């Protein structure tokens, strides 16, 4: 057998190096593949930078603009984009860039609330359904079916009808529409991981159910859920800005991205920048969130 023994390392090395084997590589640590992915994809790097930039707008808008987002300078009204006002000014002379930067707080906070509501309720339901199965699974399944059957915006509108208007209420209404997606992904991930051989191996080596759940099922189910968080983040920005555009968000002088577009609507012909720039910011953020979601999905698939 000696001959075979010395063959082994070479053979295994060749197997690793020659055949491009997808689906066999897992990150050694969290940080290394992240850097690797960023270095190889400029689009992803840009997306992360956009999201970090917007986060900075939320935390410290004063660092990015000194103009007042609420009171304008009447003399400077409806000016096009310039060095002084990169996004131009509105009908009462407020700097649009300042309004967008300060509006990030309202828009992003509402988005975060929406995602947290969807994530918390959805993953909890999905975990229950996937882990307990039986009638719990059936009930959760029906609830998810119903939530999917009603178009998201209409469900949000129904909730807004009774909850009333305002940034936070809109956020909750949007969050509830994403419960179904989180519940579905969590359930199917828990089912997938629970059915895996390594979970059975853990059970048959005597691990208790809570150890199996905490050490095997949850960590391995978390990847796709994380990718969904990024995806739903983008979707929530779109839904919240739509509701804010329709006038259900924060009350008027407060700058919210959706309502900024809505304000610009009245000056489409005269001041194109008013509707254009806030919309572009929304597109950039959603696009970045989706790009990050795709990168996270790929990492899970690899």
């Amino acid at each position, binding site marked *: 057998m000696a001959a075979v023994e010395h063959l082994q390392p070479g053979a295994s090395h060749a197997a690793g190096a020659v055949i491009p084997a997808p689906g066999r590589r897992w990150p050694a640590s969290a940080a290394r593949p992240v850097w690797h992915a960023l270095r190889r994809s400029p689009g992803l790097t840009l997306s992360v930078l956009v999201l970090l930039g917007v986060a900075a707008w939320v935390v410290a808008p004063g660092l990015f603009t000194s103009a007042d987002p609420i009171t304008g300078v009447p003399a400077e009204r409806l000016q096009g984009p310039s060095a002084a006002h990169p996004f131009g000014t509105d009908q009462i002379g407020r700097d649009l860039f300042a309004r967008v930067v300060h509006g990030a707080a309202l828009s992003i906070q509402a988005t975060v609330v929406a995602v947290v509501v969807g994530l918390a309720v959805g993953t909890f339901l999905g975990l229950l359904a996937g882990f307990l199965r039986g009638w719990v699974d059936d009930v959760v399944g029906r609830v998810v079916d119903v939530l999917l059957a009603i178009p998201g915006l209409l469900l949000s509108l129904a909730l807004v009808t009774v909850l009333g208007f305002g940034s936070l209420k809109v956020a909750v209404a949007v969050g509830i529409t994403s419960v179904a997606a989180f519940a579905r992904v969590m359930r199917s991930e828990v089912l997938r991981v629970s059915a895996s051989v390594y979970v059975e191996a853990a*059970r048959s080596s005597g*691990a208790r159910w809570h150890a199996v759940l905490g050490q095997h099922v949850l960590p*391995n189910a978390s990847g796709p859920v994380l990718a969904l968080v990024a995806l739903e983040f983008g979707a929530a920005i779109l839904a919240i800005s739509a509701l804010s555009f329709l006038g259900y968000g924060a009350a008027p002088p407060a700058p919210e991205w959706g309502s900024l577009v809505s304000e610009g609507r009245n000056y489409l012909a005269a001041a194109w920048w008013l509707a254009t720039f806030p919309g572009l910011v929304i597109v950039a953020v959603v696009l970045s969130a989706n790009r990050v979601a795709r990168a996270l999905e790929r990492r899970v698939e690899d």
Partner: protein
Amino acid sequence: MGTVAEQGPLLSVEDLRVSYRSGEGRADAVRGVTLEVRPGEVVALVGESGSGKSTLAHAVIHLLARGGRVDGGRLRFGGEDLTGLSEQQWREVRGRDIGLVPQDPTVSLNPVMRVGAQVAEVLVLHGLAGRRQARARAVELLGEAGLDRPEVRARQYPTELSGGMRQRVLIAVALAARPRLVIADEPTSALDVTVQRGILDHIAALTSTLGTAVLLITHDLGVAADRADRIVVLQHGQVVEHGPTAHVLGAPRHPYTRALIAAAPSLADIPGRRAPAARTEPVGGPGSALPDDGRAAPLLSARGLVKEFALPRTAGGARTLRAVDEVSFEIPPGRTFALVGESGSGKSTTARLVLRLEQPTSGTVHLDGADVTRVSGERLRRLRRRVQVVYQSPYASLDPRFTVERVIAEPLRAFRVGDAATRAARVCELLDRVALPAGVAGRLPAELSGGQRQRVAIARALALHPDLVVLDEPVSALDVSVQAQILDLLAELQAEHGLSYLFISHDLAVVRQIADEVGVMHRGRLVERGTPEQVLLDPRQAYTRELVEAVPGRRARALGVSG
């Protein structure tokens, strides 16, 4: 087969080099291979995974996977140079001059097209028949490929056919245009051994009647030995040995070929146990009765095990499936009982019943005389300490996020054995026991080879000093040379620790190397029991005989090749 005409080669490959994009660079898969296939000849290309054999086959029909590229060399077919053909010209070669029988029939047919249309497509594409004629011809071809009622089959969809039937459809596709060469890429490795034999026989008969040359890609030297006129052995993308089958097997010159032959379970000449030196008591020769201690108090005894599964309701179908039907056996301490059978025979379900991962419909499982059939909760968990398991796929059975150390220590933590320091020491000891360097403790499963992972799984199974280890196809996902090492390791560990094994396998050749007693399962029933020698040399049941005869490598054994 093998009436090799004295004429120029049909296919000649000269110094072919192929590489794949990998990370930022390129990895060579085929490094300067030269080989020839003469008209009507069967050439087997043998190698383990990663040897480049499949890449070579695909390069011959210019269908490399994404990222693959031919870096150099020459391809000639029937005297014509194929190098530098346009895509349009290649299209005329494929299917018309060179046919392909792919690897896995279950996924190689278009699921939304009737099989007849898939056969007819070849004829229409190459202008060999009009639509209507092609349809009629497809039925003939399906019949020729050995399908019963071809006119009915032609109108069915792939999902309605079994794996073996689908492979016959693919043979009909490959031979439809009467190509002069057929490339068979591991044509049967996804099929059960008895089906495999029928398919290989059929390919052989058809191609020799039609005078078609065959380039047979296989990892199984036994298959190559049975079917080929010449054998080409590939390692790391290079040809290490080639020549007529009898020469390569009878007088191998390269150490790798010798190692492959030694490791190939199906080529082992005499049924014999591995590492017999490790055993103290003599092993019974062919035809002898069970060893005496077989009647001593068994460690495990399964009596009348039955497992029924509810079937989804279909019109007129049975409501339940009896996966395991009245199965009884005992395993004495320190001995190995092997269950052999094809897929669906119920062998794995039986293992799961013994492991108490499934509840038997009826029957009992006794461990050391105590009835454990119905224990549950904490008592069941304590039972797990004594009965451990090693699974088929070392890729699936290790949590991808766990380091090797965490994997092996998991059973210790579950039973609160020792503190962190003693557990770490025990992990080192276990790694040493399964011949892995201590350095792998901090690594993730993905960083290990298949054989190394299976060693980790074995170390985990041993962590709690179990009495019985259930080995569910523990080597069938591994390369032959690695298989041999793992089987050796298992034999050694058994001798050292007095372990009992329940060994589940589809491969009679593997089983005879490790088992003290063999049980053959067929459709849920244990149809035959005996020592490996009895079962292999003197099978009493028709099914067992079929199974034994289907083991490849008979011709090589007849030639007296042995490890």
